[in-house]
């Protein structure tokens, strides 16, 4: 084991190239005229849109040529680092890919610009943030060298976990579709995609925890529908908006507790309990609502339409919850116990973990997450539909599973599940942008789920060898 504790690789001058490059890129950006425009406010990058004809600012002439060069630099440096043993390879490759994205993006931009079609900064906005993020990554990369140099270099190691498989898939998708139709990369499309499906990601977080413990919940779709309508009706009846947001969380926790009780204390398999609950909740919803949509909610109710700091609220909630759950699952005692229970229930019992309490906890938590998801869903539009989104539970389970949660329990992460939700929805919108008939949409989606799962299996098999 001594070999593993070898000293970190000494820093080489080359490693500091990343920092230098990052400084150059960031510096360049802050010197560029379209960033510094006090009269247009701090978020100029996202706001400013101009065509070539109206290019009064002369942006094109003031140094934007540096940007593709910097992108090329990122690409080359990332690729170089990825091949050098001792550097953090996955991060290097990400850097290279980010460089490639930015490069492709700018090639498209220039092409459109020449054709006088470019919406200036809305085309450039995202690449700006990509470059900025990648620069930060480049800095990180230098600061965090690999502690253990691997004796042999194997490309398969890059795909060390499901998260990176999905991330590469996502980047590949964005590049390919972005090449075919640059409008796909517009900030509007991307933020719509993220915000519109964030509630699925939140529900998938709860599902991930449930599946990690070796259980499953197929009643989430009905529950989201029920809680969304309940929340909407309460606020229409005059309840203050914050209370209407909180109620679904509490009621969701209540339903979770009921499911948890039946699974933990009555020893009914979770798939059976939630299959029953699926019918019960759906029935209650139909009888109670009678097909009436909820409308006329007060203006302060629409949580999902708020944009603090210019970022849509659902994205903030999704990111915060994902980070929270990821950390909690990784570092808290209960989070670790979930893995233990799912990995080997008998061993968990012998180590003094209470299966009953853990199962109760996980289902109550799941109920709360479903509650959050339902509020995000119900405040999205000005109307709340009387029926839950069709096959929502399948989207949620698929996201968890594609995100690397083994259905047998014991493995899986929050970040993977959120990224899988994003991937699945980017795929859906990509198909619209490259003109695939909507009737083939589901087929392609199914195929891609299969490919993702196969990639995961292949990776695990290789790791075992």
């Amino acid at each position, binding site marked *: 084991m001594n070999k593993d504790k070898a000293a970190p690789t000494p820093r080489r001058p080359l490693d500091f190239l990343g920092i230098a490059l990052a400084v150059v890129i960031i510096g360049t950006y802050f010197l560029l005229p379209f960033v510094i425009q006090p009269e247009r406010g701090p978020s100029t990058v996202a706001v400013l849109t101009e065509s070539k004809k109206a290019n009064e600012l002369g942006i094109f002439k003031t140094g934007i040529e540096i940007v593709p060069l910097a992108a090329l630099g990122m690409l080359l440096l990332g690729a170089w680092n990825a091949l050098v043993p001792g550097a953090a390879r996955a991060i290097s490759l990400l850097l290279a890919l980010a460089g490639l994205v930015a490069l492709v993006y700018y090639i498209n931009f220039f092409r459109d610009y020449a054709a006088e079609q470019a919406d200036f900064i809305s085309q450039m906005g995202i690449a700006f943030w990509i470059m900025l993020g990648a620069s930060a990554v480049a800095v990180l990369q230098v600061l965090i060298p690999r502690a253990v140099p691997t004796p042999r270099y194997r490309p398969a190691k890059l795909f060390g976990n499901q998260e990176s498989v999905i991330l590469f898939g996502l980047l590949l998708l964005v590049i390919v579709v972005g090449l075919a139709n640059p409008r796909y990369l517009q900030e509007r499309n991307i933020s719509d995609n993220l915000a519109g499906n964030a509630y699925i990601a939140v529900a998938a977080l709860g599902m991930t925890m449930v599946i990690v413990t070796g259980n499953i919940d*197929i009643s989430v779709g009905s529950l989201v529908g029920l809680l969304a309508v309940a929340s909407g009706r309460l606020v229409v009846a005059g309840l203050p908006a914050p209370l209407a947001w909180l109620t679904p969380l509490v009621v969701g926790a209540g339903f979770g507790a009921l499911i948890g009780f*039946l699974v933990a204390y*009555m*020893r*009914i*398999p979770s*798939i*059976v*309990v939630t*299959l*029953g*609950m*699926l*019918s*019960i909740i*759906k*029935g*209650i919803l*139909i*009888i109670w609502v009678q097909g009436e949509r909820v409308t006329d909610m007060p203006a302060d109710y629409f949580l999902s339409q708020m944009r603090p700091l210019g970022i849509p609220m659902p994205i903030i909630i999704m990111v915060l919850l994902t980070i929270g759950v990821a950390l909690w699952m990784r570092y808290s005692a209960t989070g670790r116990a979930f893995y233990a229970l799912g990995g080997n229930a008998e061993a968990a019992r012998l180590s003094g973990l209470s299966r009953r309490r853990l199962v109760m906890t996980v289902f109550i938590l799941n109920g709360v997450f479903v509650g959050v998801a339902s509020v995000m869903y119900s405040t999205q539009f000005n109307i709340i539909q009387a029926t839950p989104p069709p096959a929502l539970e*399948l989207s949620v*389970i*698929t996201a968890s*599973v594609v995100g690397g949660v*083994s*259905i*047998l329990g014991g493995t899986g992460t929050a970040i993977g599940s959120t990224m899988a939700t994003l991937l699945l929805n980017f795929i859906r919108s990509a198909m619209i942008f490259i003109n695939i*008939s909507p*009737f*083939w*949409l*589901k*087929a*392609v*989606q*199914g*195929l891609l*789920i*299969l490919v993702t*799962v*196969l990639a995961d*299996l292949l990776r695990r098999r290789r790791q075992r060898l």
Partner: protein
Amino acid sequence: MQSAPRNPTVVEKLRRYLISQEGVLFLIMLVAVLFLATRTDKFLTVDNLLQQGRFMTEVGLIAIPMTYIIITGGIDLSVGSIMGLTAIVLGWSWQELGFPLELAIVTGVLSGTLAGFVNGLFIVRVGVPPLIMTLATLALFRGLAEGISQARSARGYPEWFFELGQGEVLGIPTQLWLVIVSVIIFAIVLARTQLGRALYAIGNNETGARFSGLRVNRYLLLIYSFSGFMSGLAGYIFVSRVSTTRSDMGTGIELDVIAAVVLGGTSIFGGTGSVVGTMIGVVLIQLLKNGLALSGVTSDATIVVIGSVLIFAILVNNFVQLRRDGS
């Protein structure tokens, strides 16, 4: 179960049957039927019951292979999508490709079988867990159906085509005969043949079964293909019953089927279960739906009852089995 040292008497045998999974379930069904019969006199009539038999055919047929699969510890979520795919392939090859209808039927059912075979192949050869594999093909097969049909429906079938779905033989709906025969054959296959015993062995301990020289892969491939075949058959019967072909046929049927199988006492973890139990589950659900509807409960409220019955029945069964094993 402990083996009795002496030959059990008739009373003991009867008692053992009564407290078996199927026995308990049968009693629950009896109570439900009697209760419903007192609520409305339209329920317990021959006409009504036969009509209900017609409606439960699709679920009943698919529930047989589903029982097999769940006994081995697997699951098949794609059955509803296979139904849709079969229906679409049938209608499409007849109308668009100009196949004779007989050939179109065979093509449809074969494509269903092929779909099941693909499930089995990936599960066995690549090692994809069944839940994940069939979750993916749930989307994939439905997507294929939608893509092929482009949301067009096929109708205008000749008269003889409806015989299976709407006709009668000896006063009993045609498709019900099919269910009865299938149940008898496949109940015997499961309970009395080597294949049946192998399925239980796989469900109890797959590795053990493998080391005992059972050809596990072959059996699994067989039952998933069988599931595809039965779903295809159900798709054909469904088209014949409702006289039209649409790509959304069979949506959500997988949950009905699994509910019936589980209600019938098959453990979702594999290793136990029977076709007879499953059929009681199918019949119980159908009778509850129908009986409640006839006694004036709205059809939406019935799903609440069915969900509750599902949980309640498992609860009672758990309790009874616990008592039995304990004593």
